[in-house]
């Protein structure tokens, strides 16, 4: 297994390309030379389904592939277990290349390593819920008793205990998809491939299923590749998100990375409607390395100088171990200077709001009411100051106004 950022890579996709049509070789050669999709279609009547996709999926993460219909996301997930045959490129599962597997090996991979959940459930209408949940195990040839035991357990995990003897037709869409999920879980494979698994469900049921999946994932720690066309779902479920367009990967990253730093106009357009308050964290918003006062080194005169240089009237203070203590205000420091005192100790305001870097905008907004300190972002362990989040930047993030617009609004408000 290869290591990357201390995380185990479970699936690695390299330059995966899939072309639909008869003259694949010709189309592939054109693609290599940099021809566009349209040119290739015109000349060879081949469609490029996936264009040189590369990514890694880490063990235990929910990896969401997001795109609109026709973006190639469903084709991509089907390349992972070769329900669609890639035209070129490699798909590594752990260390072996799935694209080079023979029939028997491929069957083994499908039976033991990767289980799939489908948008349209794909249940067998003539079999009971229990038999459906045990179907993957039945295909493997496990004895009836054993597979039913595992299937019962999987059904219990998805909350379908007591429905074992029903037929799928007697169940709602949400429940049918639970059976689909149970079937995949019963196989106990390390990787779950979920193809628009919740897209066919009603909004409320969908939200339920998402929560349930997250709960199950907390317990089981599977590696999940999840396909969706819904960015909200991607953000809710995904540890990392891939955004695809026309068979090309536009961006890979965490929800926050994609929202704060969209790689293209397409991605940006996508992210516009998302509720950012719950995603953007202090980590992104804070000013790093703010001007600091050191309790031991800096006296009142030094504090006044520092404040004047950057024209502020409040500064954070830390001790010799670089632990954040609180803020001092200019007016207090001036009094100290008048009295010719040497230490800032007496005027440090310690009852100030501090947050950790994972706090979201939503969680920070209430903290700025009733006082006018910037929020101090401190490290969870060392309590060192990492940065500060100003009220203005919080408001800008929450309202999505530009800095200039905020200024204008304030000026207007003052005129009233």
């Amino acid at each position, binding site marked *: 297994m290869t290591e990357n950022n201390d995380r185990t890579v479970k699936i690695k996709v390299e330059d995966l390309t899939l072309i639909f049509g008869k003259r694949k070789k010709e189309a592939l050669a054109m693609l290599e030379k940099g021809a566009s999709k349209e040119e290739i279609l015109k000349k060879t009547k081949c469609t490029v389904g996936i264009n040189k996709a590369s990514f890694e999926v880490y063990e235990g993460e929910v990896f969401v592939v997001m795109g609109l219909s026709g973006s190639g996301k469903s084709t991509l997930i089907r390349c992972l277990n070769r329900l669609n045959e890639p035209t070129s490129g490699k798909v590594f599962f752990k260390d072996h290349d799935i694209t080079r597997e023979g029939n028997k090996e491929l069957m*083994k991979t*499908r039976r*033991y390593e990767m289980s799939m959940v489908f948008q*349209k459930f794909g249940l067998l209408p*003539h079999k009971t819920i229990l038999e459906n949940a045990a179907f*993957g195990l039945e295909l*493997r040839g496990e004895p009836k008793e054993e597979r039913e035991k595992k299937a019962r357990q999987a059904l219990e995990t998805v909350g379908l205990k007591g429905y074992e003897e029903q037929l799928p037709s007697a169940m709602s869409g949400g429940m049918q998809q639970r059976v689909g999920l149970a079937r995949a879980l019963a196989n106990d494979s390390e990787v779950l*491939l979920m193809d628009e698994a919740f897209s066919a469900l009603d909004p409320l049921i969908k939200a339920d299923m998402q929560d349930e999946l997250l709960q199950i994932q907390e317990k089981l720690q599977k590696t999940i590749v999840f396909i969706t066309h819904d960015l909200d779902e991607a953000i809710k479920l995904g540890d990392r998100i891939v955004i695809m367009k026309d068979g090309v990967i536009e961006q890979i990253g965490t929800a926050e990375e994609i929202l704060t730093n969209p790689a293209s106009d397409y991605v940006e357009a996508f992210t516009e409607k998302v509720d950012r308050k719950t995603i953007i964290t202090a980590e992104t918003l804070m000013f790093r390395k703010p001007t600091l006062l050191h309790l031991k080194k800096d006296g009142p005169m030094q504090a006044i100088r520092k404040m004047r240089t950057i024209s502020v009237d409040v500064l954070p203070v830390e001790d010799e171990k670089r632990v954040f203590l609180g803020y001092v205000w200019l007016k207090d420091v001036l009094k100290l200077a008048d009295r010719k005192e040497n230490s800032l100790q007496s005027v440090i305001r310690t009852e100030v709001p501090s947050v950790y870097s994972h706090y979201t905008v939503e969680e920070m907004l209430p903290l700025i009411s009733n006082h006018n300190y910037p929020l101090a972002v401190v490290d969870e362990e060392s309590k060192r100051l990492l940065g500060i989040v100003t009220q203005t930047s919080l408001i800008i993030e929450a309202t999505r106004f530009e800095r200039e617009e905020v200024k204008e609004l304030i000026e207007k408000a003052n005129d009233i």
Partner: protein
Amino acid sequence: MERVINLGKYIEQGINALEENFSFLWSAIDDGISWTVDHLNDLLLGIPFVLFLLLITFLAYYAKTGSKLFKKEGLKMGLGLASFVVVGFLLIYLMGYWEDAIHTTTLVLVATFIALILGIPLGILSARNRTADMVIRPILDFMQTMPAFVYLIPAIFFFSVGNTPGIIATVIFSLPPAVRLTSLGIRNVPSDVVEAGHAFGATENQILYKIQLPLAMPTILTGVNQVILLALSMVVIASMVGARGLGSIVYQGIQQNDIAKGFESGLGIVILAIILDRITQSIANKK
């Protein structure tokens, strides 16, 4: 106009060659079919009429009701067909055509059996293989549109007169729906279920036996029903080459211009047809 192409002559020559070179095959088929027909016929005739009546009535009732056999709703569902069986069989028996009806049933059963043995695998093949489908389809069209009488000529040629040529002609005539509906049923299995099978590592055989055939079963059973009805519709034509049963009585009626005989035996065929149809149809619908 003068004939330029003598296609019929080539067909005749071909059939002659087949007859001469494979005579062992024809006689083996003839022996096999005759043996089966005779024994099945004896077996069915060996059952006393009352017992037979009870058995079929029960079968009809059960086919209609299924698991609700002993429930009140079951009575409502099954009573109609059950009483029709009783009245119909009594009528045939009392008109004196019981033995002929059994002959006819035997021929239909044997022909249906052979047609299914050949037709269902062909249907599976044509559903799963494009090339096979392209070959099979036009042959089926040919078999269905060619007037059924035409099959009698080579059938006599290979098997002389008797039950066998009748059954062979019946099989050819009734085979197409078995192939077509099996193929249709398998093609209509939702692709997401088949895909799920593949995703979980099913072999081609597992896909066929665990997914496609079970899901196609209602359509295949409709095919079985069609085969039986087509086989029944052939009994009169088959009697022209010596097949026994109600069909031969109808044929006698035609030759002797005997309205009474013709009507009675014709009615017998209709009764058999309705009973066989309703029973097989309700089995198909149950699935």
